[in-house]
């Protein structure tokens, strides 16, 4: 009687298994995460290929056709200057998503690097954490103002107005949002460092570099993943805030945040102007959060298989 399940397990284990296939299997059972992934991929595909299907110029002003409702020519209507909303949402999505993902990657790399070093090497802990505190204490908005004021013209001259601002914004958001990741990672590393398997690895003379990469990193993947997904959402929202203040991209360069901001006054007249970009931001942020949720569950061996 008791042998039967054991045999089944044995039989299953003969099939090829890896960490990532386990993770994927677990991830697939998370309905929210699957839905989130589907929507996120859909939005990305739409922003990449949409403009080829709906080929209206998002910057073309057709003033005679302003504040139009939904129609075949303008599926989301037009704004108060006669610009096609659907085209603007599609192009805006490219910018917003590119900013969100790139800034997230940057903050993730910086945050993980600082967190692991601070957690693993006691001597670096103090200085690095004080640096983190310093960054946390910096008033974000004045800092952004100064950075943008100082480097805007240089970057504009080097890369052109749009790429220059893109690099600047990604850098600015990345450099001001890594602190949370660093703190979480440090905490986890501190705990992991004292665990038996790390002690065992150290006792047989494994160099720190390898301990970090082989034993520590895989175990802190889940908090990193979660902060990555939160980071995307945060970056999209910060970019919107910057656009509000006129510090972001030029005013005729659509991003979701700017569309939302410009549409706010027209909420009662043409509600489509806030609904669509708002929906795009919410769906993206929500789906990314669900993906993070699913990933965390999938990466945690204690939850996996339950």
């Amino acid at each position, binding site marked *: 009687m008791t042998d039967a399940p054991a045999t089944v397990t044995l039989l299953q284990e003969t099939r090829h298994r890896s960490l990532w296939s386990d993770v994927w299997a677990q991830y697939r059972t998370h309905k929210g995460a699957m839905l989130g992934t589907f929507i996120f991929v859909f939005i990305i595909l739409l922003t990449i290929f949409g403009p080829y299907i709906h080929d209206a110029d998002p*910057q073309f002003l057709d003033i005679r056709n302003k504040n139009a409702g939904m129609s075949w020519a303008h599926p989301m209507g037009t704004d108060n200057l006669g610009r096609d909303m659907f085209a603007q949402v599609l192009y805006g999505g490219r910018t917003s998503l590119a900013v969100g993902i790139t800034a997230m990657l940057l903050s993730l790399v910086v945050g993980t690097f600082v967190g692991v070093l601070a957690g693993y090497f006691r001597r670096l802990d103090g200085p690095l954490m004080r640096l983190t505190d310093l960054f946390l204490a910096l008033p974000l908005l004045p800092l952004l103002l100064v950075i943008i004021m100082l480097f805007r013209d240089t970057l504009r001259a080097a890369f052109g107005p749009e790429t220059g601002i893109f690099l600047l914004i990604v850098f600015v958001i990345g450099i001001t949002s890594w602190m949370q990741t660093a703190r979480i990672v440090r905490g986890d590393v501190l705990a992991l460092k004292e665990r038996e398997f790390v002690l065992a690895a150290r006792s047989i003379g494994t160099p720190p570099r390898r301990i970090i990469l082989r034993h520590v990193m895989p175990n802190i993947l889940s908090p990193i993943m979660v902060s990555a997904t939160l980071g995307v959402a945060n970056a999209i929202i910060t970019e919107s805030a910057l656009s509000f203040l006129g*510090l972001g991209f030029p005013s*005729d360069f659509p991003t979701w945040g700017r569309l939302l901001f410009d549409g706010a*006054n027209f909420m009662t007249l043409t509600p489509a102007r806030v609904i669509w970009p708002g929906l795009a931001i919410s769906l993206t942020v929500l789906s990314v959060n669900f993906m993070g949720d699913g990933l965390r569950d999938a990466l945690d061996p204690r939850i996996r298989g339950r």
Partner: protein
Amino acid sequence: MKLKFILTTTCALCVVASAAIAERGSDGQLNIIYWQAPSTMNTYLSGGTKEVEAASMVIEPLASYDPNGNLVPRLVDELPTVENGGVSEDLMSITWVISEGITWSDGTPLTAEDAIFTWQYCTDPAGGCAQASYFDGITSIEAIDDRTIKINFAEPKPYPYTAFAGAESPILQKAQFQDCMGARAPECTDANFGPIGTGPFVVSEFRPNDVITLEANPNYRDPAKPAFGSVLFKGGGDAASAARAVLETGEYDYAWNLQIEPEILTQMEAAGKGKVVVSFQTSVERLHLNQTNPDPALGDMRSVYDEGNNPHPFLTDPVVGKALSMAIDREIVVEAGYGRTGQVTCNVLPAPEIYASTANDGCKVQDMEGAKALLDEAGWVPGSDGVREKDGVRLSVLFQTSTNSVRQGSQALIKQWWNELGVEVELRNIDASVFFGGDPGSPDTFQKFYADVQMYTNNFAGADPEAYMGNWRCAEIPGPDSQWQGANIQRFCDPAYDALVDEMSKTADLNERGRIAKAMNDMLMQSYSIIPLVYRGGTSAHANTLEGVRMTDWDSELWNIADWTRAE
């Protein structure tokens, strides 16, 4: 019989009493919303319109400007003129006679001494008076008697109605402010927050940058006014929500400065709770074309005039400016961003009538083909990417303005037309508090003008354009030597123009002044260093139940608040 008598008398008394109540203070509370909140009630300590307007309910000048820009007597019986002897023949002095029986809200009489004190208060070198320009050229003010004020000028003043005319130079009470001279001026919080005035209301509570409550002045000169017993003056929010509070929800009776898209305003007005009022003065939304080179590679010499040695690579050529102007369809700019709160204009000096030129009216109609032909003829031909160039110089401009959805809309429209013309345009918008902040350390102020083209509105107070047109003298060009102060923003410099400015300051005849002002305006327009776009009106909204509003853009909008009443 006795009973009947008592009853009749009581009845007669109650009729009298109710009539008296129906006069001052009978209409309850008036609610006003200004989306920028006043920080003081002392006009002389703030250059901001919001403070001037709030204070105008309490402290008054001798004369005000009506909606047509005419000066009307306020604390005097008649305006001094050369004809009635109030202004001396040689234009060296003006004599005002205060009406009989005008008292401050504390019951003491208004005297010439108060006016003299106000002049001393504002011209104290340590005081930093925001309205000092109204007292320019005054050598002394004397009290001929208690009610007669004589103002003496250093040189003949063709337009002598500067001091004590208009809401920006009201009279302060000497008794209240005499210990607040010079550097101590900002310290007198009680006086600055609750000045004693001659106006229809007195401050009962002042919360800076928030709410002001006012009560009817018990000693106001007209016993029947004001009809409102109290005023709640709320500051803060934004233009759209202020408009909504009056037009849609009816929480407030009056809202000021509603620069929002016309379709939104129309939609709000359709709710039927109030109406939008517009008054035109001299505000013109214009483009300035930088006459100096703003190239970042120049470092400290960016946008510095340098005696003409640092010219812009192409914008000093009037042909380019003219083509840029011709390519703009001003009708559409007005329609998209201003509606009935704006009119097409081709002049930087659109009013008063006698100063408004008609020589440039051709710009009212867009002429894209003409503009293209003009550039073709001048040798600016489209390159491989469609951008026109000549001798290796590309027509590529950086176009900046302050952050405001109406302005960004106009920017987008203009960009589209200029692109069609073959001019590359990059847009930039800067937060209004930085753009207009005047901080010499910031690269983004409109004075520094580190861009090729910029757009904003300017105007002048009062009805005389002399000082305003003097802004475009060579000496007014902002630069590092002047801490970037100066009003000649586009760096226009022409000795012939300077000569006209000097001529105007010596001319007294009104028609002759009109001719000179028009000539100056035309000279500016034909240099194409300024491209006027929209003649803008001040826009406010008031509730349908509020009567007596005579909106003016020449003076405080609340100039006749004593006459406002509540309709049943």
